[in-house]
């Protein structure tokens, strides 16, 4: 399969570098493009277009790091910061708008109440994304990387 448009949401997690690299490998084959996005979840106490400077700065750092990886891998990448009330719907909307072939999502291994927990965003994207979704789970604590 050839994937020429890939969407990679980054959130400042350990797995971010891995998913950007994977997306670049897939996109390079088709001389495609990787859209790297960071979604800032804006609290309902603020308007959606409110200026959230600390979050924006942190998002810019994440995207700069991702862009560096794409440069090193000689892959065309576009970055964007999005503001939304919920992350999952924002990722799906972005995927639809850009007509991507695949979303690559990263997930750190986390436990909640003793159980492995995926949070809300990943299940939402898995349920609602119209395209293929590749899920990259990080290693368990103590697992060799």
């Amino acid at each position, binding site marked *: 399969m050839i994937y020429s448009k890939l969407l990679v949401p980054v959130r400042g997690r350990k797995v971010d570098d891995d998913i950007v690299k994977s997306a670049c490998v897939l996109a390079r084959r088709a001389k495609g493009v990787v859209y790297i996005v960071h979604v800032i979840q804006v*609290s*309902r*106490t*603020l*308007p*959606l277009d409110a200026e959230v400077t600390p979050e924006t700065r942190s998002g810019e750092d994440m995207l700069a790091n991702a862009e560096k990886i794409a440069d090193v891998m000689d892959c065309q990448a576009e970055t964007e910061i999005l503001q*939304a*009330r*919920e992350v999952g*719907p924002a990722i799906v909307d972005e995927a639809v708008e850009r007509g991507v072939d695949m979303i690559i999502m990263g997930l750190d291994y986390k436990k909640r109440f003793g159980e492995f927990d995926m949070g809300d965003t990943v299940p939402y994207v898995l349920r609602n994304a119209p395209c293929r979704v590749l899920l990259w789970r990080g290693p368990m604590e103590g697992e060799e990387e």
Partner: protein
Amino acid sequence: MYIIVVGGGKVGYYLTLALLGEGHEVLVLEKDAKRCELIAEQLGSVCVRGDGCEARTLADVGTERADMFIAVTDEDEDNLVACQVAKHKFKVPRTIARINNPKNEALFKKLGIDVTVSSTNLILEHIEEEVPTHPLVHLLTLRGGALEIVEVRIPSNSSVVGKRMKEIVFPPESVICLMIGGRGAQVPTGDTILEAEAQVIAVTRPEAEGALRAALTE
């Protein structure tokens, strides 16, 4: 405008849909998780699961910056409490409550709710308007229900037909504002003659409504 809707039932759902269509930022607060999920699936990220009567929930959803707060659950008590918290704690400029039991309308007004919508009263008013034999139709409620504007149609067999206005004994605090008859609309004076099938528009108190109807139709 930022509008918060409490209650994601049928009324809340369609209200939200219409408000979103008008370009407003809308948030629905719904207690039921499944209902909330359904709304989010169909309308996007506009539903938060929570109790609209709880100050903490209202704080979390940014009630402080809301321009309008609408409570449309099927429980009058919940609608009242939610609107009161929004009005008094978060200073929302406009609160609107749905009322299921029309008897609660005056109470809601007394407790500071800006606008009340009683579906029962609305249906009753439509029935009154649509049924031509009904002699009295409520047109508007004023001063939180203390006064109302009504329309009375004078039947042709009424004893007042052909009489002058000053000859009729109207109940106290009832003011005849307009008569619409064969010669069109006119502001009646003491010498105005009441015509058969004319429509009389009057301002009256709810308790005097029966006496006013009797004075014009019997």
